[in-house]
């Protein structure tokens, strides 16, 4: 365990595994700061995972795949937006419906496509092109090389997005309006902010980022799609926002923490600790519950109008 390679390896793994969490959580953070709770994020991620995979496979380019994933993610979240903003449906139920629809559509489409591919005799080649290291020539650099330069463009995007989202929320006028909408939509409306349009744009952002997060799973981690490949990561991203007390840096840090619990699954085995693999798989979710249970403050830092429909 004191092997420096182990630590470097672990750091790189945490960053890599945390990437989809960071992407999804940042999108969810923007949306929740505007006052909308989206528990359909798991379904959005899954949709992005499949359609990103399919587009990548069909086009041969992971970048096109990522773009398709983002588009599909946005489309799914627009469904939530329609339900919550137009029909003023309950946000939790709408989120659950979104999960079911996305799950059904993605997996059904997968079966259809897979069948077509299998019938064409191409089953072995049913793989998507992967994102590789962004700076493959620089991985020799000690420390920075393996940890950063060996990461894919998605990880760099996630790292880049953290300060961007922070700046947007804390230092930009639109971000300020968004935060006001989440705290007191009446006050924001009285100041001339279009509450619905603001929340709609936030939904879009959450969809784009959630879809991209899903693409990370099938275009970077693996190169195939499996039916349950999200494995609750969307919900973990939800928990990361709560754990990070609805701040950008806190959310990113929470995502890295949860990424570490996912990474620990393999590392513990390698380190010779004999913990049952199934218990290790539980670790991220159990850690979420424990950390939330142990948080000392009762004030969660949530936007005051989170979850409440806005009635003009």
């Amino acid at each position, binding site marked *: 365990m004191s092997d420096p390679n182990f630590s470097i390896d672990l750091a790189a793994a945490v960053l890599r595994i945390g990437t989809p969490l960071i992407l999804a959580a940042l999108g969810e953070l923007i949306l929740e700061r505007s006052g909308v709770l989206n528990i359909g994020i798991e379904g959005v991620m899954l949709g992005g995972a499949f359609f990103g995979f399919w587009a990548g496979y069909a086009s041969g380019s992971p970048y096109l795949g990522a773009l398709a994933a983002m588009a599909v993610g946005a489309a799914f979240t627009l469904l939530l937006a329609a339900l919550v903003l137009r029909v003023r449906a309950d946000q939790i139920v709408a989120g659950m419906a979104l999960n*079911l*629809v996305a799950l059904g559509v993605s997996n059904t489409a997968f079966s259809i496509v897979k069948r077509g591919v299998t019938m064409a005799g191409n089953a072995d080649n049913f793989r998507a092109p992967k994102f590789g290291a962004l700076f493959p020539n620089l991985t020799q650099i000690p420390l920075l090389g393996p940890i950063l330069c060996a990461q894919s463009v998605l990880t760099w995007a996630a790292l880049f997005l953290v300060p961007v989202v922070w700046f947007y929320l804390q230092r930009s006028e639109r971000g300020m309006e968004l935060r006001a909408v989440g705290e007191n939509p009446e006050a924001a409306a009285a100041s001339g902010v279009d509450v619905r349009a603001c929340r709609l744009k936030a939904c879009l952002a959450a969809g784009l980022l959630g879809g991209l997060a899903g693409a990370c799973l099938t275009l970077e981690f693996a190169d195939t799609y499996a039916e349950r490949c999200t494995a609750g990561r969307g919900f973990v991203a939800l928990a990361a926002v709560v754990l990070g007390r609805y701040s950008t840096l806190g959310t990113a840090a929470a995502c890295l923490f949860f990424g570490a619990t996912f990474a620990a699954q393999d590392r513990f085995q390698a380190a010779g600790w004999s913990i049952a693999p199934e218990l290790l798989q539980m670790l991220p979710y159990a850690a979420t519950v424990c950390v939330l249970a142990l948080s000392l403050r009762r004030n969660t830092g949530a936007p005051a109008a989170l979850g409440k429909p806005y009635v003009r």
Partner: protein
Amino acid sequence: MDQFWVWPAAILGLILLVLVIVKLCGVEPRDAAALMGRAMQSPDFWGEVARRSAVLGLCGLSVVLSFRAGLFNIGAEGQLLAGAIAATAVATKIFGSETPWFVGMPLMVLAGCAAGACWSLLAGVLRVWKSVSEVISTLMLNLIAIWLLRYVVSYPQLLQEPGSNFSQGAPFVESLRFSRWGGTPFHTGVLLVPLILAAAQVFLFMTRGGLALRATGLNPVAARACGIRTLRLGLLTFGAAGALAGCAGAMGVMAQGYLPHALFPDYGYMAIAVALVAFLHPLAVLPSALFFGFLETAASTTQTAGVPNEVLFAIQGLVIVALLCRGVRLPGTKREDAPA
């Protein structure tokens, strides 16, 4: 959305969509229909429908109670598994072949209820003491329970069948499992479900506690001002919802005869759809559960012909979307247009 043609058009659209998907899967709709037709004539099919509907019914009732009390407890998935694990532990570790059925089986069910209630109360206590949203905690507990199940059936010291290569539990002795009726999957436990639903209907609409629960979900401020102990009620509801789902898990595993690697996947989430389609009425959960049970069994049946059974999820999601658009409101949502 109140025009008369909306509902028939929607149903027609849904059927068309299913046909299209079936065709895309390379299955001739006529073949699929014939397959379904044949299947529906066999009593095995309907026994299977009953078996699955029973689980969906109890879990759906669990969701009904929670939602009526204003609690977003979506942990039926995990509570179901907790109940199954507890019942199996009791059956294989405590009881043996000498245990008569009238002792063993009720105790197994009780163990299932208790385990489900505890699993649910974890989320309940967190909500009351630490303001942890029960949405997140129950979601996490679901995922934990899934891995817990895989864990206990993978180790002989726990619940794995000794000497087996498969990750599954040891088969129960004859006296501790539901017998199949005429060889079909139908079992005695199924008959309990309508009774429980009727009892829940009586409770909810004919007793003090039921009125208190409904009032708390609709207007907790007024309920508290009338002296209703909303905090205690909330915890009791968490416990009751968990007990129902745990009971479903226990009975499910007693019908199966052993604890498998994965049990009733996603039934907890389907239960939410069941509850909403039943408009949160316990008696209406029966036809709603039967409807979804039928869809489930049909999906499994056509799966052998090549239609993926995830179509089912899409259908459920769209049903909920349609209901939401129709204006189905959960109790506890503020009335925006209250008269002054």
